[in-house]
């Protein structure tokens, strides 16, 4: 986000397209290839969905994009710079531009919410403790958790933990926010509120958002663009705006997924 969207567009923004590029990416665990030849581009400021059935490698793809797993082949580029081939120092600098919301929130349980958000601020900025506390309170307010600064993760509900995880992901004003299954474990209303929050934050912060999910409601509500991973063919079998995929995609596997039809039924009867 680096927010940087001043009213008069004062920020120096790189080219509008191609914020993240994934080129010929092959993901493998040893000899076992999970996905091969993945190619796609995420545009700046859009909400990009990585979808597919359970166990097809969606989260693995995200973990490749944020450098937790090294690709077997291919590379990931941010603003045209290779993240995969970057040296340790350069990679660390690039990592600070990411914010990641993990499935379970992954809040550090021995720290309060304010300390969770304050840790990266203390490490990577020159802010004083009081300023860090103020920024942490603001980030918590942005996700609707004003007043919960001194609570430990175990003292709040699962949905609140997820939102606190989002506040932590936003701590350093990242340019790219990654969400791993944001709806997992949330009731439909909380899930919908989180979707709205993601839209609000994207619209106002200008961050690029990459979401790994198989929740249809979320996919259609927030997705600008998407790729569909398929386990059997081990690659992307469809890409485009989710609503357009639903309307135009002829591939029965994608159609079944997007219409929640059972296996081998309804392909040509609807």
């Amino acid at each position, binding site marked *: 986000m680096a927010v940087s969207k001043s009213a008069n567009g*004062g920020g120096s923004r790189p080219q509008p397209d191609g914020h993240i590029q994934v080129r010929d990416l092959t993901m493998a665990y040893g000899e076992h290839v999970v996905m091969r030849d993945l190619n796609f581009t995420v545009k700046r400021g859009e909400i990009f969905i990585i979808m597919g059935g359970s166990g097809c490698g969606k989260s693995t793809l995200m973990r490749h994009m944020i450098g937790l797993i090294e690709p077997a082949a291919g590379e990931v580029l941010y603003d045209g710079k290779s993240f995969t081939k970057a040296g340790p120092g350069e990679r660390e600098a690039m990592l600070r531009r990411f914010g990641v919301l993990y499935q379970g929130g992954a809040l550090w349980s021995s720290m309060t919410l304010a300390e969770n958000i304050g840790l990266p601020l203390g490490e990577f900025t020159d802010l004083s403790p009081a300023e860090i506390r103020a920024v942490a309170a603001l980030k918590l307010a942005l996700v609707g958790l004003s007043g*919960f600064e*001194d609570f430990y993760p175990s003292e709040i509900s699962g949905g609140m933990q997820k939102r606190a995880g989002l506040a932590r992901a936003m701590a350093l*004003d990242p340019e790219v926010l990654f969400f791993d299954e944001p709806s997992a474990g949330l009731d439909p209303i909380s899930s919908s509120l989180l979707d709205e929050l993601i839209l609000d934050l994207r619209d106002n912060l200008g961050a690029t958002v990459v979401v790994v999910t198989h929740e249809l409601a979320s996919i259609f509500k927030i997705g600008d663009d998407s790729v569909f991973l398929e386990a059997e063919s081990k690659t992307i079998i469809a890409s485009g705006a989710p609503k357009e995929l639903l309307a135009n995609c002829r591939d029965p596997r994608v159609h079944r997924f997007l219409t929640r039809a059972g296996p081998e039924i309804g392909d040509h009867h609807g």
Partner: protein
Amino acid sequence: MRIEQVAANENLSFEKTGDGTLLIHLQGAWRMHHGMPSASRMEPEFRAGSSPRRIAFEAAKLAEWDSSLLSFVWSVSELCIRRGIEADRTGLPPGLRNLLELAEAVHEKEDDSRAKRRPSLVERLGRASIATADSLGESLSFLGQVVVAFGNLARGKARYRASDLFETIQECGANGLGIVSLVSFLVGVILAFMGAVQLQQFGAQIYVADLVAIGTARDMGAIMTAMIVTGRTGAAFTARIGTMKVTEEIDAMTTMGISPIEFLVLPRIIALTLMMPLLCLYSDFMGIIGGASIGAGMLGLSPAAYMGESIHALHAHDLLGGLFKSLVYGILIAFAGCLCGFECGNSSSAVGEATTRAVVMSIVLIVVSCGIFAVVFNILKI
């Protein structure tokens, strides 16, 4: 107009207009990495007599901004609310205005975020006493459940996997031989060395063998083995069971009608009860070997003479007493390890705390029971 330079790259200046409005000019780049101004810088503008009626923002020369500006404007807004001053945000960039609205929207009920206050000393003392009593109750309840589980075992009704038992036996027995060898040998060396320095003065160096043999067999072997097993095995029991609790594996067992006490605690207590005397016996042997190395290397005693003196000095009740103590220590370590695992909270830090508690509890129980044994054995003249 007064201009205040706030930081190298960030600019903030104030202007008072005729109608009682304080106009805040925001200029340049606002970057969190370069620090941020505090809303308290506004305080002088609010001094009695000159306090503005309204605050407005002007951002025509504002370049890039991030959370530092957001945080500043948010703090200023709160200050205005506290002082009853109207804040006009129309001069701010639209994205920033929207974010402020988002931050001010209340999602959670106010009561949920009950303010945390520090309780008084009396309250803390009371809570600590209640917690201790509760913990004692839970320990007794756990002890009761373990006894019931052993009752089921005696009747052949307890359910656990034999493979778990053998794995635990291997883990706490055979896999621990290396560290038990090292520590016991060194303890034997230390005992012999300390004895040798004194006994040499009287030409009684041969009695170093008696000292080491009796000391090791009666107490040191059992104590040192217990300390090693506490750190290696007891802590591992707690960490394993605690993690299972965090990941709801224990709940899954309970809801399937499998008793976690029988399934997890029984094999651990049985394994440690069986292995501790064996480890202790091995530790006694290694201690005597350690003593013999000093006897041979420093005192010029032949290994045969040293071992002959050791065997002569040792009585069956010394050895059996030590083994009995180690058996009791084994039960205590397994009990403390499993108990703390079951009492563990639901977070990763709780697992760490539970493990620490298990080690401390085991050591205290071992030392206390060692003292009791000393008194009882003395009364029984063992």
